[in-house]
């Protein structure tokens, strides 16, 4: 891993007791024992203080509170939950909310980030400048301020009666974002399954084509067959079910909407804030990645008459991804961590619910430990997944 500092040279030739003090290895060992002892003693001292303080304040210790009844409601949830459920389940609801807002944020940030990053290297000066201005603004305003700003904007939107009409596709109001959705139909599950099967079939087909090319030297263009393999099965299933095409339109009714799907104002504000903030950083990462491929390589590829698609696929992308992926990983992790800003605008994420639990039970140490452990685990899993992907795209030295 790291290169240790080169140590001082060798041991003295003869060993006397006095020499021991001047011996490099002895001193190194001594320092380390002292450091380790210091850390352990500090830990013990702090632990003892905590136990004493908690005992004096009559606060329970341990994680038993996770099974106690929470007695608070959570407005937004992906799994069943009521105030009669346990604290543990409340935290689980929070975790799901953290993950869902982060996942949506990552998608939005990636799409905007890549678009702006490509604009940053555009040959069009105007586009370049616009992208640069965007990046400088969203990167340099604190993310909390952005989230609070969007929350205030949505809170001040008109009520559902006068909601902003999004070209007939949905509404934006102070109740959040409401949009149309295909009406629920059993075909959807099967279409999803067919889609997954299509992806599997396409990857098998692509691998066979590559084997064929490596064995015979003959190139089989798999772009359209693969697109057909992926999109075909879901379409066939859809047709097989008689092509159900009913849509559930949101309609104004009284003070709210019926039909369609609604995303809460807090979710929209939080996601907009953290996604826009990250998109600025992602744009810069993408720009650096694109600029990492020397011009000469693209020109060389063109001069051997490689098709533009192949130049992108085999020359530019492999080198760009190599530069983009590692910093992109840390951007994703930091976006997930930024989702904890939810507590400011009242979105029930893990930290917000953890905070409530902490205030109700008084068990600050355990509640914070739960939050920290979960975030450490999320960071770790994200890093591992991205490292795995990174190993796929990294330089393969043969």
């Amino acid at each position, binding site marked *: 891993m*790291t*290169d*240790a*500092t*080169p*140590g*001082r*040279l060798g041991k003295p030739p003869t060993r006397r007791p006095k020499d021991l003090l001047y011996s490099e290895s002895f001193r*190194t060992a001594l*320092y*380390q*024992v002292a*450091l*380790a002892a210091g*850390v352990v003693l500090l830990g013990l001292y*702090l632990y003892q*203080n*905590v136990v*004493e*303080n*908690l005992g*004096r304040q009559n606060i329970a210790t341990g994680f038993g509170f996770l099974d106690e009844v929470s007695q608070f409601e959570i407005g937004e949830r992906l799994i069943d939950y009521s105030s009669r459920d346990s604290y543990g389940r409340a935290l689980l609801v929070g975790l799901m909310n953290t993950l869902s807002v982060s996942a949506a944020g990552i998608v939005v940030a990636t799409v905007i980030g890549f678009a702006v990053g490509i604009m940053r290297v555009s*040959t*069009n*000066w*105007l*586009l370049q400048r*616009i992208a640069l201005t965007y990046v400088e*603004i969203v990167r*340099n*305003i*604190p*993310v*909390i*301020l952005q989230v*609070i*700003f969007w929350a*205030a*904007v949505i809170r*001040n939107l008109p009520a559902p009666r006068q909601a902003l009409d999004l070209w007939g596709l949905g509404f934006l109001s102070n109740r959040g974002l409401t949009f149309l959705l295909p009406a629920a139909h059993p075909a959807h599950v099967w279409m999803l399954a067919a889609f997954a099967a299509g992806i599997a079939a396409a990857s098998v087909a692509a691998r066979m084509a590559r084997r064929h090319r490596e064995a015979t030297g003959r190139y089989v263009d798999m772009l359209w067959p693969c697109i057909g393999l992926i999109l075909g099965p879901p379409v066939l299933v859809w047709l097989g079910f008689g092509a159900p095409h009913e849509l559930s339109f949101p309609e104004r009714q009284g003070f709210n909407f019926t039909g369609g799907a609604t995303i809460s104002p807090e979710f929209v504000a939080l996601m907009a804030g953290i996604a826009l903030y990250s998109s600025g950083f992602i744009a810069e990462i993408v720009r650096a990645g694109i600029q990492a491929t020397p011009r000469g390589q693209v020109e060389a590829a063109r001069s051997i008459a490689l098709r533009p698609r192949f130049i992108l696929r085999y020359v530019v992308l492999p080198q760009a991804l190599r530069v983009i992926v590692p910093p992109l990983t840390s951007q994703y*992790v930091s976006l997930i*961590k*930024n989702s*904890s*800003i939810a*507590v*400011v605008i009242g979105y029930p994420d893990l*930290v917000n619910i953890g*905070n409530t639990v*902490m205030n109700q039970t008084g068990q*600050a*140490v355990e509640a*914070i430990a739960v*939050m*920290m452990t979960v*975030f*450490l685990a999320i*960071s*770790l899993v994200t890093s591992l997944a991205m490292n795995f992907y990174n190993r796929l795209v990294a330089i393969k030295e043969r």
Partner: protein
Amino acid sequence: MTLAPIEVVRREAVVPVPAYDPDARTPVGVWLKANLFRSVGQSLLTLAVAAVLLRILWFVLDWGVFNAVFYTTDPDVCRAATGACWAVVVEKHRPMLFGLYPYDEHWRLVLMMAIYLATVVLSLWPRCWNLRFLVPLWTGAVLSIGILMFGGVFGLPYVPTSEWGGLPLTMLLFTGTVLIGMPVAVLLALGRRAPLPVARGVSVVFIESLRGVPLITILFVAVNVFPLFLPAGVEVNKLLRITVGIAIFFACYQAEVIRGGLQAIPRGQYEAATSLSLTYWQTTRRIILPQALRISLPAITNHIIAAMKNTSFVIIIGLFDILTATTAVMQDPLWRRFYIEAYLFVAAVYLFFGYALSRYARQVEKWIASGRI
């Protein structure tokens, strides 16, 4: 069969390429063609984008300048106008900039900010970089700022830290973060590269576990858990705890950046220092760190700017920095509908300081490149 001779030499005259002249200015026409009107498609794109841009610019001017109300004490005047209400910033600037600090004592904060800015600007100027100047400067600044903020002497009423707020608080948090965080960061980075495995282990665990959690949880620890660590009867000021919390979080990120700089130092530098029989600390202080910090300066700056933005996280634990103060002011039912103007003002404050920091960092990089420092 006779072969026709193949012509290898061109017949037409070579168009002379003008010698490269770095100072030559590109004619406007050439620049426009190359950057905006390269092809028909590009030209159309440029025109379309320019049209949208002009439209937005017109809207912004119309809203923000032509129809805006810049000064009034009556919110109804703003309500009647179609444009922005900058009057909210004028009307509410004191609670926004100074938070909960007693109203009659705000002059102390103005004076404090003047002393603070003067001290920082002087310390950033290379000509002032010697201890004989900096030590008295900072001693004087810390003393006078402390007296101004706390009061309790010279007839100034005492103001507890719980009533501090606004922009001065943001400045103090930021300065505290950097002043405490940078030395910790250097120690952590050195620890991670130390020849002692135990030191390496402690640093790695510390850095990685703190980098894996959100700043908010560290603030929770500083506010809710840290008091439990102390023996009964011992208390540490909440503001100080929070500052140290942000500083340690900052240090963990900065340590990784400095480690990058340390790794870029060639082995030969260590070996040369060893052969001169310099000790570890002499080598580190005189040879390694000056180079490592210079190398990693751009990334260090990024994290320092991030630290400035991160001070805004204190809104979660109820410290009244400029953002919290503004959010609180926006609860006022008379003015709350002009929140966009108020938040734009706060954003402008952050953008200004961030811009100033990054310009200064670029200047330092130029000084380093030219060998001045």
